């Protein structure tokens, strides 16, 4: 059960919404917009959409579509919704562009067969399971961006659990949104300051409390380096995929992967 909270600061024309327990983390949204009612309406739409996506992508929820696919696709062809099909086709594309390092199965995406004609999914190996953990937030942020664009809210900052940030327009007293990257191993230490304007920032890395959560799908080794990577692109889904893939990639692979993406800037911080 997630909890939504919102508040409008009249003096600053600033709307702030918080959503807790969403996709395993929290989301904070800041809109700079004089139309308070519009902010509240858009926020309600955002909360509803994120809740829907949370349910769709949650592989532990027995009512979710992905749970059913993971359970049955190794033994039968499972009919998938348009949306799930299109997300997986995108994931396949990203898998190829990232030299196989972005992999929603965390082991062997080639075992996932997407039959676009019959709109079915099947797994050609046992123990295959799809986990959208590395990209769901990016996909969701693209949906949120579309809602803001449709509502003509031009200046907004969305912080999805710190690792995924979407910045539209600019800060009310600046020409962009400035975001600092914190060192997770030394609280309060800023390793970089990044300026965003109509861009998405995704950060991947390890934390003292979570050292084994990024795995190389080829070697099945955890990436345990004390480092973080950040990627800025115009598309949140791209940013999300790239930050994970580039966290795993060696320098040579990093160059090859980045060559496939326009306007992506990448930084690696050895902590």
């Amino acid at each position, binding site marked *: 059960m997630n*909890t*939504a*909270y919102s*508040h*409008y*600061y*009249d*003096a*600053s*024309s*600033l709307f*702030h919404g*918080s*959503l*807790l*327990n969403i996709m*395993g*983390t*929290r989301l*904070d949204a*800041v809109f*700079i917009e004089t139309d308070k009612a519009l902010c509240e309406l858009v926020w309600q739409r955002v909360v509803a959409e994120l809740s829907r996506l949370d349910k769709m992508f949650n592989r532990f929820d027995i009512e979710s579509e992905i749970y059913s696919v993971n359970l049955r696709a190794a033994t039968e062809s499972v009919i998938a919704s348009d949306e799930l099909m299109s997300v997986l086709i995108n994931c396949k594309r990203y898998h190829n562009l990232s030299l196989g390092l972005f992999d929603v199965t965390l082991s062997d995406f080639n075992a996932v067969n997407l039959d676009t004609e019959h709109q079915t999914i099947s797994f050609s190996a046992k123990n295959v399971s799809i986990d959208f953990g590395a990209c769901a937030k990016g996909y969701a942020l693209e949906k949120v961006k579309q809602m803001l664009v449709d509502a003509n809210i031009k200046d907004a*900052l969305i*912080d999805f*659990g*710190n*690792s995924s*940030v979407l910045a539209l327009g600019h*800060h*009310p*007293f*600046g020409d962009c*949104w*400035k*975001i*600092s*990257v*914190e*060192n*997770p191993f030394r609280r309060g230490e*800023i390793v970089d*300051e*990044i300026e965003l304007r109509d861009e998405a*920032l995704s*950060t*991947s*890395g*390890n*934390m003292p*409390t*979570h050292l084994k959560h990024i795995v190389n799908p080829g070697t099945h080794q955890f990436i345990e380096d004390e480092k*973080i990577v*950040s990627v800025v692109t115009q598309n949140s889904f791209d940013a999300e995929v790239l930050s994970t893939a580039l966290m795993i990639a060696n320098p040579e692979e990093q160059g090859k992967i980045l060559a496939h993406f326009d306007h992506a800037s990448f930084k690696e911080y050895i902590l």
Partner: protein
Amino acid sequence: MSTDKNTKQVDLELRQFIKNLGYMAGGTALLTTMPWLQSFTTGKLSEIKNEKARVAILGTGSRGQYHILNLLRIPHAEIVALCDNYPPNLKTASDLCPKAKTYTDYRKMLESKDIDGVIICTPLNWHAPMVLDSLAAGKHTFCEKSMALTMDECKAIYEAYLHTDRVLYFGMQRLFDEKYIKGLSMIHSGLIGDIVGIRCHWFRNNDWRRPVPSPELERKINWRLYWESSGGLTTELATHQLEVSNWAMKRIPESVVGMGDIVFWKDGREVYDSISLTYHYRNGVKTTYESLISNKFNGLGEQVLGHKGTMELEKGQYFFEDVAPAPGILQLINNVEKRVFSTVPIAGPSWVPETASKQKPHYVIEGMVHATSGGSMVGAENDGSDNLISAFCQAVITGEKAKDIVEECYSSTMLCLLGNQAMKEQRKVDFPDEYKIPYLKF
């Protein structure tokens, strides 16, 4: 007189804050809701920098001495006269400001042409005659809270205020206390949602007595303990907090019920040492007021309960019911409110919920944790009293009348007196029509 450089500009911080409000988006709108602060700026201070308000202290007991110490640090104030009919207090005050002329009869003092303003810090039963005489003598007048001992006296003062061209102030220092000003403006901006209830309390553990050198002086020195000169815990303590309650609600209660008893200090006093009151606003919101003076565990405080959060005004902190904004986002919001463009420290690996989710406080003034225990029988430091007395002295020079301060004091004093009536008569008491003034919104 003291000219300590570091302590002289006692009121600059709040003045600067008020001035800055003028430059902030929405700041002017905020100031219109707190009109008594409009002239309290550094600019106004520099306009009067070569002038001095010549003030007299009427009543040189503990509260009078407290004001003297603050006045000595205010450059635009000069204490020219002192008056008391209790020689030891007059002597102590005179030692603090030896140049001031001393009087034992306040009417004599009011005849002096060398006095511009009078600061009254006497027992409650003396407030009305002294305020009325002071205004009639053409003096700008400041009087400690509460306004007066009876409702009729309050009404008489209010009428005099309507007709005088003199400045009149009352000791409602929370109106000049930065944490209250900011906290209330945050409440009014909707931070904690709709107000659904207010809880006020003031607890101490002492007998509320002053040493009496000789038995016949008991009622004179311990005036707080007898109905002829005091309203007890309501007029001496609750008045401040009921004022804050009305400030938060932007209206005043229409009725009150309550109980009062002498539970512990059975020493011949008349006023209750334990009171519980419930004030009822027309929209159903209730302010509960509790005070007793034989247990100090809870100290003092005003909790404004909203459907989204809780503001503890005295502590300058607030809590959210459910979701607290992420610290980086909160910093961003605070900076936007201050019109500051700065970086938002949020980026990093995924935020993972902490298992222990205890409600954590947020602070009205960053880095400020200044709450008084409420134990002092004289007055706490930095509680707005110094700002208030500075504002009065400024007004003595400029002649600018105070906005809303008399009305706020009238409202809260009336509520104290109605609370006393409810407790004494053990019944629900409605706000009487004959004491309603146009300012009051029920």
